């Protein structure tokens, strides 16, 4: 429960979020720890069911309870103990100091309300803007995210914008109070590559202007390579690997990360058959006793099936959840 020091904006310790389902108790997030430094972009990579979205919903206390339940752990944001805040205190945090953008902009935009009103509400509530101030601010934000003719379009409804423009409107709303942390959950997954490039460029630019920290949740390793400083890889509710971006791509120390990296077609190389990770993503209600990745791992040993792996420290900034982390690290270091 240490307060974040050394430039950490956010510090998550041993967070556990479980869901009570018909299928049994699902450990969506099962003991994860990570930090976000001021001004950095942390990438969180994982497949469906890895717990990446649930972990981030818990940061804003948005996990639906029930069926969800934050079982244990601590979340420290800028000195605040998020899990013990009252509803009023947490509401003051959301949208103001921590903002979130989603894959589908309609998750955060109200289809029946003019964009102007939605943008104005945020700053009237959090920044105490008057109507006039809020309107001027709304137009300024739309201009900043690159909406042409912002002064005229501010009174449009969300459906009157194209997909990419709607994404921009959502970003404008998320950033209107200059949050210290922006959580972007698959912000470009539904977009075409050309629009994706525009939106990623925009997030980068706004981040450098405001100095905000960003958590970027994605399944696309290409997006991670271009956008982040550090990366955590999640699988079955656990952090499987944590490293600087450079290390993660050049010297991965976890067979799952290695498999993910190899299974993306590389346009700079010609391979006849694509590497594939065998099997299916795990059923969280029925995890095997040992390493959750063991049934799909190509270097699985007896110990992997029986014992839960240790979180091995390779360098101060590089950790891997694997019985053979040191071996994998040594191999990828020599093969490059």
């Amino acid at each position, binding site marked *: 429960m240490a307060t974040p020091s050394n430039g950490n904006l956010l510090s998550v310790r041993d967070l556990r979020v479980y869901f009570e389902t018909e299928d049994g108790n699902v450990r969506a997030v099962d003991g994860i720890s990570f930090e976000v430094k001021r001004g950095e972009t942390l990438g969180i990579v994982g497949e469906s069911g890895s717990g990446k979205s649930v972990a981030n919903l818990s940061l804003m206390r948005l996990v639906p309870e029930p069926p969800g339940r934050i079982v244990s752990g601590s979340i420290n944001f800028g000195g605040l103990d998020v899990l013990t805040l009252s509803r009023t205190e947490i509401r003051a945090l959301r949208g103001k100091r921590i903002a979130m953008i989603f894959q589908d902009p309609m998750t955060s935009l109200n289809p029946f309300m003019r964009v102007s009103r939605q943008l104005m509400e945020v700053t009237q509530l959090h920044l105490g803007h008057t109507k006039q101030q809020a309107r001027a601010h709304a137009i300024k934000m739309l201009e900043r995210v690159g909406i042409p003719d912002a002064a005229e379009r501010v009174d449009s409804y969300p459906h009157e914008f194209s*997909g*990419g423009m709607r994404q921009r409107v959502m970003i404008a709303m998320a950033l209107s109070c200059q949050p210290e942390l922006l959580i972007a959950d698959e912000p470009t997954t539904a977009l075409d590559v050309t629009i994706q*490039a525009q939106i990623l460029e925009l997030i980068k630019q706004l981040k450098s202007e405001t100095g905000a920290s960003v958590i970027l949740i994605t399944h696309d390793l290409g997006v*991670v390579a*271009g956008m982040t400083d550090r990366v955590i890889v999640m699988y079955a509710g656990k952090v499987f690997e944590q490293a600087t971006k450079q290390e993660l791509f050049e010297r991965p120390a976890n067979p799952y990360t290695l498999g993910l990296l190899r299974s993306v077609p590389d*346009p700079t190389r010609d391979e006849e*058959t694509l590497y594939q990770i065998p099997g299916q993503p795990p059923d969280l209600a029925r995890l095997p006793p040992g390493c959750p990745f063991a049934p799909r791992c190509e270097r699985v040993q007896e110990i992997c099936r029986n014992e839960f792996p240790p979180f091995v420290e390779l360098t101060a900034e590089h950790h891997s959840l694997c019985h053979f982390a040191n071996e994998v690290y040594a191999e990828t270091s020599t093969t490059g």
Partner: protein
Amino acid sequence: MNEAPQPLISIKDLKVHFPVAGRGLFSRSNQVVRAVDGVDLSIQSGETLGLVGESGCGKTTLGRAILRLTETTSGQILFRDQDLAQLSNSQMRAQRRKLQVIFQDPYASLNPRMTVSQIIGEPLETFRLASGEARKRRVQELMEMVGLNARFLKRYPHEFSGGQRQRIGIARALAVDPEFIVADEPISALDVSIQAQILNVLARLRDQKHLTYLFISHDLRAVRHVSDRIAVMYLGKIVELAEAKSLYANPLMPYTKALISAVPVANPKVEMARRRIVLTGDVPSPINPPSGCRFHTRCPYAIDACRDVQPQLVQIKPNHFAACIRISADEPDIEHVRPGDAPGLRQTSTSHSA
């Protein structure tokens, strides 16, 4: 593929226009969506042709039109030498055996009330290919072929994961021994680790069964990996067509350059060093597409003539076709063409179409 004999599929000046619903209940507006607007394309037997483009470019409509799942407005779709566009519904039904489709969404495309055995076996019954024990054996064989455990015969779609469901969809498409398969975004709803599995299954089956694919996707990395050639579509038209590797390495048309430069690469060094051509704006509406070259509203290289002249898809390099008046066979690199010049306008006589 090199000495091109007769193509398996040959599309000539295909158009698919949809009427736009009017404002009132009984009124019809005169506007049409030009989803596919004059496409010429041929696909060789055994080839995988990749079709890429942004959403709304017409790539899915083109795929559906080839299979007559969407009615065509005009043009020809030759399957060997039979024009599918001219067939009656019953004649088409007989052909459908040879022409199959794999859909994007493995959750929506399988009937939730049917068992896997019924789903895969249905086309066998429809085309009277097998029944009883033979049918069961065939279903099991198909399941194994796509990497599904044949013990799961009696299970329902919801009992499978997304990747397994996509395998069921593939098995169903293969049940009737088709020759040509339209795979419409077959991996985009799947997890990264599962995408590679499905791409590999599709490639293996192509080789084993000598299948021909039209592989539609917005994922250029995947398309480059599986395709022999790639066609790039923009607002209802094919704007570039070339061998997959050379298209990716040396795109000619500005749109293709932008599209490829926008694809994120899972390599931090490449990402940091890259010079991205960021296109401004969205794809214009296909109801009222821009005049001349449809890309001119977003093209960083556009000149006045691009607004007036509709560029033809012409051969710029061997087996590499592009629709852009600012380049020509003599001056293929747009970066080196003199500002304001349009070499493509000078040599219309020698060009031949794809």
